[in-house]
């Protein structure tokens, strides 16, 4: 071919009749697919087709550690209509169809992330070789953005790995590592990274020479001998009509139970897969393109993509108004207190490769802190997401003692001691005499950071780092800055949080900051409903129906009723009557209920294997007793969620939040606000700010001042303007 042609997003090398096409999207750190790359690749194929000296082709990435991460999501976001999105899908399908039918052998050489459109591309090749590297992973995560694979993925995946496995991977958007990919047949070979291109080229050459690289599929007897269980399952479920029906029906049932009908994409993927399996490839592709088009412009996909773009933007945000500010390098972290929070923070930190020093009150508490961190790693070793040596290489970064020794060298100290202002101030003073340059971060969830910082000789190095429990699982970190916090300190905390794998938002100081504060009126409203006579399960049910992962009563049991009461007290103190704590809460506490931690709350906690049920005796201390009143679930959900949304708008108006974007991300990742609703601000926008305002006014009329609309809501709602421009 004319190798002198230069391409914008591709680079071409020829070795002994085999052409390697490196995808290297110009100006981007990772490869994504767009119409532009598609057109260029088609032109390259044209040229290679005509060139008689070309025997075979290898498709590889020009990026160091990534193959192709998927389709360019901006392209999907900006699509004008379902028809336009459907056309995108059909174009993609046609391109990969041509690749699959290409007369010369095409081998994919995969290293790094091979996701979405990237994997669809690889699956259309004739042979797949992947590096056996940790960074290599393959999957079709489209459903996580509210769409489905749109370039033949729902059709080619089941052919390669079988229906059951394809359902497993596509419906959950799960990615697999090379070892698993090889075992299920998604790739043909897994090789050490330095050999990747060499092996891929050799395979392309062999295929061109007519060699049979894959063994003939064994007969039934052979299959049964090799893998009796797997073969039997396939024969029973996948290779006959009744079995397949059962498989699809089961999968659909599970999906509906899991998504409560809020997420249409997995169901659509199922439909496309089923169409292909039952009616053939053409019908399958047809269904895939149609559903892709519908989903791409659906509200759920818009919201999920909105969250994706918000988190992507946050990854680039240093947390200050000046993008030039750089945080200091954190070479070691100190933690005061190795309890649940402290050990969780230690885990995410050593897991990021940063040495940690914990201070605890005595040797026994030190031992518990070590055991807690090791326990999280052991869980991962057990689940095989980490091996034993990797665990040890992380644990070596953790030391702990009962004194302050070693804290003089830490760059950041996170205090996770008891929630007591005096104690925290004392810790701050001691730290500053020992380490005058270190940043002091408090993990308080309710005490204003400024109150703690008032004890500091240099409050510019004091801020809050509010982690969520369990720290190893919860994705959000809320960094709290006071008016005196230096940008450098803020940027350091934000960068540290990102290293720890967190999505980080920066919020202003104040009672409850952002997340705890907006949770307050939401929880209070739930308790109000309880006092009005609603049952515990109706309240929880209404909000899980709305899309929260757990309802407010369950949440109260989980975080501890005493903890909830404490935060509520702080908020009441700060915001007055509209956050009045319902009196009955005191009675619930007096009856010895702390929630799950003492096995006594709104629910019973006996046998962990049994489904937990509401503890009816809790009603004995509540008005109305055990006879509960029916309150419409829609009303419950509206009242609770609007309290949260209105409070979020208040924080934005007051400048606690830097942006509506941060408020959305904080509520979704920190509080479980339904992702398909996009967050409080996206949701208000989607509902219409004028309609939200109207509903607040109506509730204000019924229940009084606690539903008084936030000034910013009145302003925007009155003008019919949205939070997100």
């Amino acid at each position: 071919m004319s190798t002198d042609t230069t391409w914008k997003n591709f680079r071409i090398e020829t070795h002994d009749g085999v052409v390697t096409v490196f995808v290297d999207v110009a100006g981007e750190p990772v490869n994504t697919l767009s119409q532009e790359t598609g057109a260029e690749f088609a032109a390259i194929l044209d040229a290679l087709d005509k060139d008689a000296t070309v025997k075979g082709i290898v498709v590889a990435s020009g990026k160091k550690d990534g193959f192709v991460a998927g389709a360019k999501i901006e392209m999907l976001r900006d699509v004008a209509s379902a028809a336009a999105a459907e056309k995108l899908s059909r174009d993609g399908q046609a391109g990969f169809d041509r690749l699959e039918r290409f007369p010369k052998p095409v081998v994919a050489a995969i290293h790094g992330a091979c996701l979405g459109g990237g994997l669809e591309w690889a699956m259309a090749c004739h042979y797949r070789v992947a590096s056996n590297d940790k960074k290599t992973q393959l999957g079709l995560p489209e459903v996580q953005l509210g769409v489905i694979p749109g370039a033949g993925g729902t059709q080619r995946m089941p052919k390669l790995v079988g229906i059951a496995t394809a359902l497993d991977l596509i419906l959950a958007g799960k990615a697999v590592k090379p070892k698993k990919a090889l075992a299920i047949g998604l790739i043909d070979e897994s090789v050490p990274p330095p050999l990747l291109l060499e092996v891929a080229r050799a395979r392309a050459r062999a295929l061109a020479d007519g060699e049979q690289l894959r063994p003939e599929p064994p007969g039934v007897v052979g299959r049964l001998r090799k893998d009796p269980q797997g073969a039997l399952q396939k024969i029973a479920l996948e290779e006959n009509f009744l079995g397949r029906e059962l498989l699809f029906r089961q999968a659909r049932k599970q999906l509906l139970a899991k998504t409560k009908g809020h997420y249409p994409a997995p169901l659509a993927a199922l439909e496309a897969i089923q169409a292909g399996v039952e009616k053939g490839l053409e019908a399958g592709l047809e269904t895939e393109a149609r559903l892709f088009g519908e989903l791409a412009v659906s509200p759920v996909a818009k919201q999920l993509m909105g969250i994706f773009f918000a988190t992507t933007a946050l990854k680039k945000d240093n947390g200050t108004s000046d993008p030039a500010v750089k945080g200091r390098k954190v070479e070691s972290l100190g933690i005061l207190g190795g309890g649940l929070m402290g050990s969780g923070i230690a885990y995410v930190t050593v897991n990021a490769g940063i040495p940690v020093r914990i201070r605890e009150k005595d040797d026994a508490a030190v031992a518990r802190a070590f055991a807690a961190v090791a326990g999280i790693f052991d869980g991962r070793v057990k689940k095989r997401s980490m091996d034993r040596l990797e665990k040890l290489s992380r644990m070596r970064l953790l030391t702990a003692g009962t004194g302050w020794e070693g804290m003089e060298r830490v760059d950041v100290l996170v205090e996770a001691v008891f929630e007591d202002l005096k104690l925290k101030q004392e810790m701050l003073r001691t730290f500053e005499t020992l380490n005058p340059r270190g940043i002091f971060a408090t993990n308080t969830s309710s005490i204003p950071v400024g109150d703690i910082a008032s004890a500091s000789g240099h409050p510019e190095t004091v801020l809050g780092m509010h982690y969520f429990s369990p720290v190893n699982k919860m994705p959000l970190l809320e960094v709290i800055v006071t008016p005196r916090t230096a940008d450098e300190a803020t940027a350091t905390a934000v960068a540290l949080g990102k290293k720890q794998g967190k999505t980080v938002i920066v919020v202003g100081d104040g009672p409850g900051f952002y997340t705890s504060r907006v949770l307050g009126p939401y929880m209070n409203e739930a308790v109000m409903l309880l006092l009005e006579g609603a049952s515990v399960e109706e309240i929880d049910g209404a909000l899980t129906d709305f899309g929260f992962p757990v309802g407010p009563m369950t949440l109260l049991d989980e975080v501890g009723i005493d903890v909830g009461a404490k935060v509520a007290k702080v908020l009441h103190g700060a915001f007055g009557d509209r956050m009045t704590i319902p009196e009955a809460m005191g009675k619930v506490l007096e009856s010895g209920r702390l929630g799950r931690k003492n096995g006594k709350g709104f629910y019973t906690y006996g046998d962990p294997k049994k489904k937990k049920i509401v503890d009816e005796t809790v009603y004995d201390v509540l008005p109305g007793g055990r006879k509960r009143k029916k309150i419409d679930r829609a009303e419950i959900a509206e009242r609770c969620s609007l309290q949260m949304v209105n409070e979020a708008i208040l924080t934005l108006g007051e400048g606690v939040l830097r942006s509506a974007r941060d408020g959305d991300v904080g509520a979704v990742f920190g509080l479980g606000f339904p992702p398909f609703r996009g967050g409080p601000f996206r949701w208000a926008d989607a509902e219409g700010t004028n309609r939200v305002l109207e509903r607040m006014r109506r509730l204000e009329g019924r229940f009084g001042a606690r539903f008084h609309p936030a000034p910013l809501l009145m302003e925007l709602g009155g003008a019919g303007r949205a939070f997100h421009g």
Partner: protein
Amino acid sequence: MSHHRKHKPHHARASSDGSPPPRVAVIAGLRTPFVRSNGDFKDLSAVDLGALLVNELVARSGLPLSEFDALIFGQVVPSQLSSLIAREVVLRSELPRTLPAHTTSRACATSVQAATEAADQILLGHADTVIAGGAESLSDAPIFASRKLAQALVNASRARSLPERIRAFASLSLKDVAPVPPALTEPTTGLTMGESAQKMAWENGISREAQDRYALESQRKAADAWASGKFAEEVMAVEVPPRYLKISAVDNNVRRDATYDALATLKPAFDRRYGTITAGNSSPLTDGAAAVILMSEGRAQELGVKPLGFLRAYAYAATDPGDQLLQGPAYAAPIALDRAGLTLGNMDVVEMHEAFAAQVLSNLQAFASRKFAQEKLGRSDPLGEVDPGRLNPNGGSIPLGHPFGATGARMITQALRELARRKGRHALLTICAAGGLGAAVVLDGPEA
């Protein structure tokens, strides 16, 4: 004798104008509790112990990790699974993985060897900050197969058929199959440490009563030191991995309740009939780790680090193992003192390793003996008498225990802290070691 020829008392590093030799700062020292073998540390190897000790020492030091230039570490009884303990310790601690490390050995003086090597490197200008120490796990001591069993196993692994494989074992007798425990035997004399010490006790006329009284006194001093909190800063608590259910915080061989009568009833260990050495007047088999951080004096000043003290001079010497195996300190101490430009009388603390009470008493006897000085050292005058009030003020290896590779580093820290408490200027530290080796170090207190 050969050591006459080698001994050059005037070839000390002290400069001719009498000013003190260049020295190296000891800025921190730490050890694990010393625990009887097969006890709390039974599941930990020497590498594990070394790594957790070094990790805590480094973390407590407050020094940036980039400050460290090297780690020198040792163990005496080799481990089967890791051949280079020093490097393994680095790789299992928070120290940067780019830190070079090497293993060193001088039997029971191993961690003194590590410390003096570190000091040499610093004085040569090759390094500013070096960690030196050692660890021992006698719970994890290698058990060897007999020579015949080992050969049979090798032959069996090469066999091509099952009958051939079986034949490889055919010639073995029952005793060949029994595992061989490690022996603390001098290979050239065939005597164990204990037998050699017993021989010294007889030859030097050290009575059973003198040994038991010495051991009792050492036990009492160690118990007092623990009770008064003197060890709190130099012994870390170990939360025992991997499950962290056990916590080891104190040396478990120190006997607060030891009495002379109880010691006197113990049976001799090495000669039932004429023996005087018992488990009570010997150091026990112990697991543990200890290390120190050494730094150039200039760097310590730059960083504003206040040293525990200084390593001022040292010497190693050896005697014929067939003579008095554990008399090494009596040969090394005079040279070290000469190199320091000091005398025994200048020493505010004398820290002497106690392998056996009989050995300590023999060493002290030789220190004071004009005959020994003239005949063995070629010196006209003896070193002198050691003031009992300055000898091992907080107990020695008999009560505290003796993880071979860790003892030297333990003693450096212990001596310097005692020197500081006494506001003393100088300390002498000696260790006897297998092979007839002796080590001696002269330390300066922080104010000296």
